[in-house]
């Protein structure tokens, strides 16, 4: 497969505008500006490009929700990649920032937006510096600012750095954080397309989604949509990590067999180990065992049908040397730490789950606690303000369900080690003093 997003990715200096242009960059932009913004929008809709940040909602449709009119509209690029296991946006921003910038300019044109932001997570300091430099180069070249390339399109682009919060990857929390408040998600409806940043219509898209836009315009939507499969068009940059020999980012066509991805591209498990299970879509997705998942095609619909999700396309592989309880504890602690605290089920439920899993780990638990853990996950699902609660409930719930026996064995082993035993001791017979019990003067 010819790479699209990863074409020439390691060319030295690709992050500078000259090298980017030498490799065909900033040719989609003039082409788009010659079309009307409605035509560009139609191209995006025809391509059926689905959001690459995790939700998988069609980008063109989302962009078309923005109302027409001369009010202030915004485009925010969600570069707050904090999902465990996801590192695709880092590679794209670090090595080919102009691809993203061009995508933002074209996307803004399609939606009628004239102020845009890139919200990049604070930990990506190097990548944010590179983006800053790229934006300056784009401004100097006249691709940003007033009347771009002589058209009526005006766009300003500000790179905004976050400061370390996973919840700010959720689009409404990101908007709140960008407005200078605590990163708490908002109620939806109203959706950001109507009331977003500063209460104005806002389009929020992931880095990878926007990076695809120049290619869609350059090749034409139909040609681009030939990649991938029905309902999951295009290429996807998949991050594979964990117990594999060759972790990293791979640009694949959606629909590739998962086995080719994990065993082939990522090199499969290490010497002497077998894959026990994997997270198909970052640590927020229900796990799939090797038997369940390796033979499925890697695309949105197949993953959903199997009871999991594609999410951001980040595969974390766990082999049989890792205890399941460790994985569950680690994942739960992450969500408890990152919960924003606004809604009760997530705030208290994540906290509670962590405490229960710690007790399971030290053995101060019983199988009934596993039932309670599962029930708490059910109580969290669907009742929270945003998806972070669900993002914990799904993997933990699936781990407890699919590896129940391993949890129980762990509890038994831990109790044995501490001398607490598993069986209830027989009560010793107590000798009664006389024949009749003394009832007392009632």
């Amino acid at each position, binding site marked *: 497969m010819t790479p699209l997003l990863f074409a020439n990715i390691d060319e030295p200096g690709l992050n500078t505008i000259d090298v980017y242009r030498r490799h065909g960059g900033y040719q989609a932009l003039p082409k788009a500006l010659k079309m009307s913004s409605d035509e560009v929008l139609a191209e995006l809709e025809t391509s059926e490009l689905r959001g690459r940040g995790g939700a998988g909602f069609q980008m063109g449709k989302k962009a078309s929700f923005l109302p027409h009119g001369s009010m202030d509209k915004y485009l925010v690029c969600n570069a707050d990649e904090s999902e465990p296991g996801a590192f695709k946006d880092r590679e794209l921003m670090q090595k080919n920032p102009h691809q993203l910038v061009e995508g933002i300019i074209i996307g803004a044109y399609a939606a009628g937006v004239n102020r845009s932001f890139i919200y990049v997570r604070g930990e990506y300091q190097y990548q944010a510096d590179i983006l800053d430099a790229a934006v300056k180069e784009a401004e100097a070249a006249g691709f940003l600012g007033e009347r771009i390339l002589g058209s009526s399109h005006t766009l300003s682009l500000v790179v905004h750095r976050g400061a370390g919060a996973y919840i700010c990857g959720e689009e409404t929390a990101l908007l709140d954080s960008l407005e200078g408040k605590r990163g708490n998600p908002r109620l939806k409806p109203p959706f950001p397309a109507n009331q977003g940043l500063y209460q104005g219509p806002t389009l929020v898209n992931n880095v990878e989604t926007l990076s695809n836009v120049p290619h869609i315009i350059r090749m034409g939507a139909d040609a681009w949509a030939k990649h991938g499969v029905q309902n999951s068009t295009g290429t996807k940059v998949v991050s594979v990590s964990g117990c594999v020999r060759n972790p990293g980012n791979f640009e694949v066509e959606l629909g590739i067999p998962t086995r080719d991805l994990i065993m082939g591209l990522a090199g499969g498990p290490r010497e002497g180990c077998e894959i026990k299970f994997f997270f198909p879509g970052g640590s927020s997705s229900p796990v799939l065992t090797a038997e369940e998942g390796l033979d499925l095609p890697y695309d949105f619909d197949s993953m959903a049908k199997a009871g999991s999700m594609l999410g951001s396309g980040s595969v974390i592989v766990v082999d049989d040397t890792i205890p399941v309880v460790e994985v569950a504890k680690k994942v739960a602690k992450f969500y408890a730490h990152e919960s924003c*605290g606004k809604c009760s089920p997530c705030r*208290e439920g994540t906290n509670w789950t962590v405490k229960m899993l710690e007790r399971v780990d030290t053995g101060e638990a019983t199988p009934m606690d596993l039932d309670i853990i599962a029930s708490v996950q059910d109580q969290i699902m669907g009742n929270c303000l945003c998806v972070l609660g669900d993002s914990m409930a799904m993997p933990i719930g699936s781990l407890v369900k699919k590896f129940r026996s391993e949890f129980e064995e762990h509890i038994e082993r831990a109790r044995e080690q501490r001398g607490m035993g598993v069986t209830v001791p027989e009560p010793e017979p107590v000798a009664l003093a006389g024949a009749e019990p003394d009832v007392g003067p009632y």
Partner: protein
Amino acid sequence: MPRPEPKPITFTIDGREVTAPEGDMLVDAAKYGDVEIPVFCYEPKLGQPVGACRMCLVEVEGIPKLQTGCSTPVKDGMVVHTQTERVHDAQKAVVEFLLVNHPLDCPVCDKGGECPLQDITFGWGAGTSRFIEPKRHFRKPLEISPLIAIDRERCILCYRCVRYSQEVAEDYQLVLHDRGAHSFVGTFDGHPYVAPFSGNIIELCPVGALTSTAYRFRARPWDVETAGSVCTLCAAQCNVSLTVRDDKVSRVMARDNHEVDDGWLCDKGRFAYQAIHVDERVTEPLMREGDDLRPVSWDRAIAAAAAGLRRAGRHTAALVGGEATNEEGFLLQRLLREGLEAHDLDSRLGAQLPVELHRALNAPALQAAVPDLEFAHAVLVLETEPIDDAAILDLRIRKGIRRRGVRLAVASSRPSALDPAAEQVVRFPPGGVGQFLYELASGGHALSGWLRDAGEDVVIVWGERIGGSPGGANALRALLNLAASLGLGEREGAGLLAIPAVANGRGLREAGVLPNAGPGLVAPAADGRGAPEIAAALAQGELRALYLLGADPLVSYPGRGAWSRAIDRASTIVAHAGVLTQGIREHADVVFPAEAYAEKNGTVVHPDGRVQRLRQAIAQVGRVRPEWQVIADVARAAGFDLGVHTSAMASKQLFDAVPFYGGLTLEALAGHGLRWPAGDGAAKAPEADLAPFELEPPATPPAPTGGALRLGAFRSLWAAPEVRISPSLQFLHPDSRVELAPEDARRRGIDDGVAVEVAQNGTSVRGRATLRHAVPMGSVFVSDETAIPTGTLVEVRRA
């Protein structure tokens, strides 16, 4: 702007069809169908719903996920289910989650018995909790301010207090720290949460996390009785609900009246009830023996007072202020005018205004109501500081700006707390309000255009101090011209709102406590002297007796020097006082104990014309007698029968005497009062000449020479005797402050916080220097209104 007029729609809830206004949230609309949906974080007074607690989840047909009822507006044809198993499971789950970290403090928690968490757990919870882990712990309880204790373990992080601090009071002092399950409510770096409206979070908090330290462990809800009344500590006259235990007021809570206070109270109103029961309060009649005031019997005090008044005859003057009700003022002016044939009485602090001006300013058409502040297109705050003079209006104005897009302009000499929220800020030198109004009315000021273009509904909030200063009458005529040019009298929703210096200023005026107006603003038998003239006459011996009803000239009246001489010279001074302030303590001959508002029966009139009723909630403390009765007894002893034997009779006399109260009854006033003068009584309003007035250009004040600054005075919300004697509020009693611009201070070698002296011609005021960058150069503001008149040129130097 037009008030929202929702149209009724029909929706189905639990199988029943219900009609509700469109756009109402599901939680409110369900009440029309007698269905209760439990909520914690939903509080419509706090603005947009946040959907944070997830308690109100219900099933709406057509939407797969459960929806929060607090954020879902009802639409025609919506079908809602609140009794399905799915909803019950979700509700039980949320209660279980909320109780996960909530301590079992009910036996020792003040909120027990009136706690929404208890009620909702009982009604919608599962009945058991499976949580056996250690709960999160905090040190508790901690004082987050001297008035409020915070117990962070009980906090269910519903966000209400933080949203209140940020979106209603806009003081941004109370915030959430940390994240997730570690979140807690706190302030910056150990600073206390002290703000004029901080007490409202006690009522907002649905659990016992924020509690009143003054009410701590005092009573359980089943021990107390509640009584409703009106707080008369300031002109805002908020409606309150008094919690009474064993005939003592233990607590004051808000009694939501959308037309007056919108459900909020300021801290003074909330905690100054303590002044009712402290020892410092005067609860028995006193008479002077030498330098001291000694307790005497009622008969003796009344006899002495009557004798003194009879001796002075028509050389008696009266000053009414403080918390005096309409009836008290009315009866006193009857005593003076009809009993003693004296005509020198005043309820205002400054120079007299022509009665035509009073009638014009009282015109019903020109009157704006408090809700108009929320729905106007533009509001102009003119030479008044709402947060000091009528605190609750500050919140109302902010609500209008925040929720309805009201545009605010502030025109004052002193920087105002509303400046950050204002679109236009105009500063003029102290004493320059006359010049400003002259320019504004003639259209020559930069703000004139803004006012014209701002919209049709303009409300002008102005301070009555404008009328009291020199050139005041002219300034007010300019104000009336301005109102006419903006067409304020022609629209509902636009008008003037006068903030009096005295809590019941408007009521006392309408009851006839003015030198040149009788009850109903009709011409009296003869015109008399106003307050400054009374002072001069007393000092010269032309007046001999002074009756002080809730007023102390040395404490709140400008012209301290003149008043000092006046009360020194007066032969008889009879005073009603709850606290012995300086003038009364040193000079009064007979002191009658004043009632607190919780003990009174009577009526007061809100600045916007709403007649409100005070109802007695507790028996009079000590040997206090109703003040209307004291006046009647003094009158009788002086040979004049006022003909009142009950407070209802006093009210009836008042309603009969004032033409535009005709038809009003105490029963009609009920709990929320009536805007009678502007409504049913409007037809009987006195004839008012509203035609454009001739204006004289105001005199130009002399330019400052050699480093002199122009003085302005202000009075803090907390500068009241009730605050001084309430144990909880004492820390708020302000010390004397002098506000300077940083550059002016630097040139005089004055640093922030040092003692300075402000002097003019031998009179001086001392205080602590406070540097504020918002104070314009050339102005200085002192917190004492009595010593030096506003607008005078003064010297400021280190003390």
